[in-house]
């Protein structure tokens, strides 16, 4: 995957940096008011402190099971007197969590444009409203920056104006969008798009799909069909099946990941809306159970706001106590 551009070329540069600074400041403030306080040197380690750790974990959507396990581990180490003071607890906790995610923090390997004989196909799936189309817009931008030629497929033929929305992103990125009329068979749209992308010798095809709740078996079958027809043109396609998850989602995120994996063999995750106060702790459960690589995080609405997932950064943001949740 092309690296995130170091130097934004457009006029929004100051805006992006400014936003990042604000976001960081917010994190620091939270740290100082929450955890730093909690784990200040010399603070006695007692049950109350461990309780607060549990609270932070639960409040970040880590889930009861995992929070229990981590807390039990801390208790255990405490008993064996392995933890000296507050900072030691924090460090142990952080390490534990970073380790859990490091294994799945893998970016998507795309050969360089010159080495691509056929389009590299990315199929983007997820429930309604997680930000699939926006993620595609940002992803197209990243590929363009990396020197790839990109084609978009308007596979969401169901939601009103979804095609128009993708076309706007196509225009912003200066990439063609293959679309049919609303209500068309999404498998047919995506099939045609891959043909067309092949004919244009495009490097990358990114296919949008309609949002669907993972409980709707009919719609999940439809998605499996989209995947199947792609394989008919190129047995290796889709090369990446990207599940977009909303960081605000709670424990249902695990079930979504499970169901989409069953239906279309998800090969990567993109976690959106991490620029709010949601921490996306459900990723731990997903990493544990399904070990799906986490590719990207979405941190804003701008075209540049898609970053590589970095386990340590993610954990640091999570441990910064969310405002008002104490």
């Amino acid at each position: 995957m092309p690296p995130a551009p170091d130097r934004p070329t457009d006029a929004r540069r100051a805006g992006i940096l400014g936003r990042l600074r604000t976001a960081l400041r917010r994190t620091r403030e939270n740290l100082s008011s929450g955890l730093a306080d909690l784990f200040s040197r010399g603070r006695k380690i007692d049950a109350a402190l461990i309780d607060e750790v549990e609270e932070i974990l639960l409040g970040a959507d880590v889930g009861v099971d995992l929070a229990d396990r981590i807390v039990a581990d801390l208790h255990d180490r405490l008993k064996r007197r392995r933890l000296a003071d507050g900072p030691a607890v924090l460090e142990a906790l952080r390490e534990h969590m970073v380790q859990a995610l490091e294994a799945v923090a893998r970016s998507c390997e795309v050969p360089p444009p010159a080495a691509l004989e056929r389009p590299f196909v990315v199929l983007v799936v997820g429930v309604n409203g997680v930000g699939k189309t926006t993620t595609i817009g940002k992803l197209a931008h990243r590929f363009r920056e990396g020197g790839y030629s990109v084609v978009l497929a308007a596979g969401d033929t169901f939601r009103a104006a979804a095609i128009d929305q993708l076309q706007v992103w196509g225009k912003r990125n200066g990439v063609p969008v293959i679309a049919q009329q609303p209500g068309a068979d999404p498998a047919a749209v995506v099939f045609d798009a891959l043909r067309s992308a092949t004919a244009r010798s495009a490097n990358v095809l990114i296919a949008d799909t309609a949002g669907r709740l993972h409980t709707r078996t009919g719609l999940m079958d439809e998605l499996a069909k989209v995947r199947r027809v792609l394989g008919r043109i190129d047995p290796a396609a889709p090369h990446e099946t990207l599940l977009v998850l909303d960081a605000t989602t709670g424990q249902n995120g695990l079930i979504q990941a499970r169901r989409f994996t069953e239906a279309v063999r998800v090969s990567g995750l993109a976690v959106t809306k991490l620029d709010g106060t949601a921490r996306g702790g459900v990723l731990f459960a997903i990493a544990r159970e399904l070990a799906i690589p986490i590719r990207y995080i979405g941190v804003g609405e701008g075209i540049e706001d898609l970053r590589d997932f970095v386990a340590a950064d993610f954990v640091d943001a999570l441990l910064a106590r969310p405002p008002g949740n104490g």
Partner: protein
Amino acid sequence: MFEAISERLSRSLGKLRRGARLSEENIGDALREVRRALLEADVALPVTREFLDRVRARAVGQEVLKSLTPGQALVGVVHDELVRLMAAEHGGLALNVPPPAPLLVAGLQGSGKTTTCAKLARWLGERHGRKALLASCDVYRPAAIEQLRVLAAEVDAPFFETGERAPVEIARAAVAEARRRFVDFVILDTAGRLHVDDEMMREASAIHAAVSPVETLFVADAMTGQDAVNVARAFDEALPLTGVVLTKADGDARGGAALSVRWVTGKPVKFLGTGEKLDGLEAFHPDRIASRILGMGDVLTLIEEAERKVDRDKAEKLARKMGAGKRFDLEDLRDQVRQMRGMGGVRSVMERLPGMAQLPSGAMDRVDEREFVRTEAVINSMTPHERRQPQVIRGSRKRRIAAGSGTTIQDVNRVLKQADQMQKMMRRMRRKGGLSQMMGGVDPDGLPDLLSGMPPGAVGPGAAGPGRAARRGGKRRRFS
């Protein structure tokens, strides 16, 4: 939604319900289980904590321990507290207001605001005969305005042409337009915004200030986790909310966000958004949901749903036909299948029946809605003669029907057998004059009212299905 939390709660409380004696120890155990169930259902931590404190205080108090059946009383306390947490009564929309009444819809990105706007317009028109003008103040998301325009056409509501205006101006102009056109309501869709985006939150307040809506609805995704409290608090501070719409409630999220949002804002959840079809908007009844959570079923909603969706004429025709001793043929079976699907499928019906939480976990997941699609396809591939006289369907006809419906001969056989069983059941029903004996497995106490309230077609094989299914669990093919 809600079934998992319901399963959890009834399991932990079930022990108490049976064993009459309460001790500090088993109350503690039960409450720990309740805590776990709530957290797993994404009920926010502070909400869970307060909830448990209240239940604990009442549990050790006089009202539970002095009661003759303390276990039952504790369940009652949990139920009460759940209802209290969700507001005691459901608040509909303020309908008796001078037109044009603005209705403001706000929430995070992707929570389902635009779809909800269209559903509200349809709901107002269909249930109350009111006309609503739809207007979009979302000038940011690509094609957001276009989306509302398309949906407005689908629900047959007038659409306000935005033009090149700023959001606040759009809101003002839409209200003026509604006044000119003598429309009752103006539904104002707003851009999705992050609650930490001060500028955008200020814009939302400015829109509100410009038009003083009679209803300001906060749209929240039922799948939201712990963050629901932060988001709801920020929106509640920026806007004088009057209610909440919980969307995507047809998924398998446990819906704890409903409790969190309600707790933070103090505003009632007024609607549940279910499904992408534009009739997927249900009034929210906290007491019924509390019953559902506690595994007591939500039969009231089921009845209303049945009354609305089931075709009375067809149901009565079927009842007359059966009464006259006629055969239950494949046309009838198809009607039943269609009606069941119209009510959201077996799952949705089952979820609302009492006692369902006691089903082995996963049984609901095994309900295969596709079976209904196949059944309908098979029947559609028959000639009218075959549907009325299924006994003529032999080898070659079966092959043709299977090929025509894209199914197998086994599927055709299964449908024929189903119709045959149905026919036998109808005969038995006529003889015994009742249904209750067929509903084994489901708490019979809760049923007589339910049955008398439902149109005959709905209580026929359709409603009996889940009952039988519940009893026979995983044995049937449909559940495997």
